[in-house]
């Protein structure tokens, strides 16, 4: 009996010490995809995210003195595996980073019950911007509807869209269909014809049928919601069919340097809207080189580190880190909970001054979130492929809030009704 008591006591001490050891970290898992058909676009993003967190751990000892455990759970961009990863990590996680609109839509109802914030920077369900309805979801700093609005504005600046035809080439997947409600509304408001052209997963690298349709329809512009191998497939077909590249614009996930390098100079003129931009002399990159690359801890390479996607990965981790920091300052605790992080993400204030302090001036436009506004609507820049790299060709573009916000509220309410009972914050009190 005495022996048993000692064993039990040892077990209790061990458990307490074990708990303490586990608690000495901020567990922020990333549902990554470094494998599968979309790996080519996933890898640089994941590398950027990872390097930023490793840099914080090495340079500052983490955030607020607590190291970040930035564990990756591989999904291969599969929705089923993504949900498994969510279930596997939710016990300890302070955040879910689902990395696919399909996975986001699947875990969205679960996070409301599990009370874990979803952080989906620049992707996911656009009405997640409505923080009263989607209390636990954040698509900071810009949504797909923002992207569609900015692209249409950019085209409109070249001349009225009345009577014009825009082909909407998109992946036949929840991600690709996401901007359709806004584009349909803009089409009706501005008088242009929108021709949706879906691309199946098996057709990503063989889009001759889609580009034959584009040839037949003779659109004035092609707007692309592509991802993974679809981007390279579309751009090579555009070059092949001699579509004027200056009239071809992609969303921010269709602006990957490696996809354009396949066609090189032939792709010059192709554009992509983006809420991030690589600033190669930014101090943050020097810190990453010193603390991560030179230490041999980075999985990236010099060429990738100059690209749009790697640098966007840095910005994504910066958003999470700033949310954690805000939560730490608000609660006074270095070890925060998922609920604390929700407060942090609802109170982001990324000003020019803060970006300068972070060594990231010019890498993302300033933005601010609130309890009711989970996106921040940072706006973005139009980037253009010059044959070798993406360059900025516009001032900061801002999405048309007057069109988007009523649609966000309408679709958010529809979602809440369809998923009733759905907890909605009437007061938008983040503490509630």
């Amino acid at each position, binding site marked *: 009996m005495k022996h048993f008591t000692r064993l039990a006591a040892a077990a209790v001490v061990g458990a307490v010490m074990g708990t303490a050891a586990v608690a000495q970290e901020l567990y922020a898992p990333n549902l990554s995809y470094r*494998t599968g*058909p979309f790996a080519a676009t996933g890898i640089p993003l994941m590398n950027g995210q990872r390097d930023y967190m490793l840099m914080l751990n090495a340079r500052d000892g983490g955030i607020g003195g607590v190291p970040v455990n930035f564990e990756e759970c591989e999904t291969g961009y599969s929705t089923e595996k993504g949900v498994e990863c969510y279930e596997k990590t939710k016990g300890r996680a302070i955040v879910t980073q689902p990395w696919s609109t399909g996975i986001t839509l699947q875990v969205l109802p679960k996070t409301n019950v599990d009370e874990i914030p979803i952080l989906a920077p620049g992707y996911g369900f656009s009405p997640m911007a409505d923080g009263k309805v989607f209390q636990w979801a954040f698509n900071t700093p810009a949504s797909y509807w923002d992207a569609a609005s900015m692209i249409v504005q950019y085209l409109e600046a070249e001349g009225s869209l009345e009577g014009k035809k825009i082909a909407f080439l998109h992946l036949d997947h929840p991600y690709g269909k996401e901007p359709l409600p806004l584009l349909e509304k803009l089409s009706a408001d501005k008088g242009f014809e929108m021709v949706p052209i879906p691309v199946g997963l098996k*057709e*990503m690298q063989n889009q001759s049928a*889609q580009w034959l*349709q584009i040839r037949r329809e003779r659109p004035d512009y092609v707007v692309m919601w592509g991802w993974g191998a679809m981007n390279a497939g579309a751009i090579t077909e555009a070059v092949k069919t001699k579509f004027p590249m200056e009239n071809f614009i992609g969303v921010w996930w269709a602006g990957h340097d490696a*996809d354009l390098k*396949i066609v090189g100079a032939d792709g010059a003129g192709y554009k992509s809207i983006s809420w991030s931009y690589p600033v190669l002399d930014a101090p943050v990159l020097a810190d990453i080189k010193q603390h991560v690359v030179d230490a041999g801890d980075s999985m990236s390479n010099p060429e990738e580190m100059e690209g749009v996607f790697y640098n966007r990965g840095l910005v994504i981790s910066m958003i999470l880190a700033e949310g954690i920091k805000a939560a730490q300052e608000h609660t006074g605790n270095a070890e925060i909970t998922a609920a604390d992080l929700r407060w942090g993400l609802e109170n982001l204030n990324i000003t020019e001054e803060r970006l300068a302090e972070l060594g990231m001036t010019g890498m993302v436009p300033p933005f601010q979130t609130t309890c009711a506004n989970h996106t921040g609507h940072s706006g973005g820049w139009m980037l253009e492929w010059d044959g070798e790299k993406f360059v900025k060709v516009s001032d900061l573009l801002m999405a048309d809030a007057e069109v988007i916000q009523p649609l966000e509220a309408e679709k958010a309410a529809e979602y809440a009704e369809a998923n009733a009972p759905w907890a909605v914050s009437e007061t938008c009190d983040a503490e509630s």
Partner: protein
Amino acid sequence: MLNDIFIKPFVDMVEAPDFLLQVLWEGLVSGILYALIALGFVLIFRSSRIFNFAQGIMVVFAALTLVGLHEMGVPAWISVGLTLAVMFVLAVTIERVVLRPLVGQPDIILFMATIGITLFLIGFGEIIFGGENKVMITEELGIPTDSVVLEPWGGLLILEQKDITAVVVAALLVGALLLFLNKTRMGRAIRALGDDHQAALSVGISLQTIWVLVWFIAGIIALVTGIAWGARAGVSFALEVIAYKALPVLMLGGLESITGAIIGGLMIGILEKVFEIYWGQPLLGGNTETWFAFVLALIVLLFRPQGLFGEKIIERV
């Protein structure tokens, strides 16, 4: 509605014959490439009764090896030679490590083993080459990349020279394969094994040698397919999904028929493109290529369960 289904598509074809030619050409190119992938399946199935699930990943692996070697500084054509050597080593390894221990096991076990090979090659390939999209060394291999622009009936027809090369190379490869299978001793041995395992073994045909040979030939086909597809939109693991397009080709042409694979591939390539352009996009919102080939194959199977060119199996009880 009836007009849109039965009249308008044909009127469109007549009114824009250059566009119809372009559709047929794109279908032909896709069909040739489907046929190449299907050939890899057929060869292995004929000689070993194994449905090789790994054929798709072999395409990716061969293309990645070629590009990877060139990135390491190896000249293009030496890279081709070394890639063929790698595919030979792969064939020997698969025969020794996977197939030989499973001789005599039910077909489903061998099929499952090829799924294992697939998973291994995905993981191994990602460790060695990474998952990034890579540029096929088209120009380094001497494949022309310009376009031939024709103006039939005052219209426009664009033929990519690399597509023309793919069609010519594929045709030569198929011709060489048919010659090899019909005119050489080894080729006849492969066919004999396909006809009757026991009888072939009884006359001294080596199962091990033939298996290595067919897996190596499947590797060569995979390399040619990988170069052709990779030249179109880069080399990445996304190429693997194209292999699934070969499944309806096999259902249509029959699992054992080389002629079936070729004709089935061409039929599906051309018909799915024509259907998509003239019926799918105007009437069904597009993206019918995802399912059209399977529906076509199912309809054929309703009337000919062995496929168009497969052998009818008669079992006496």
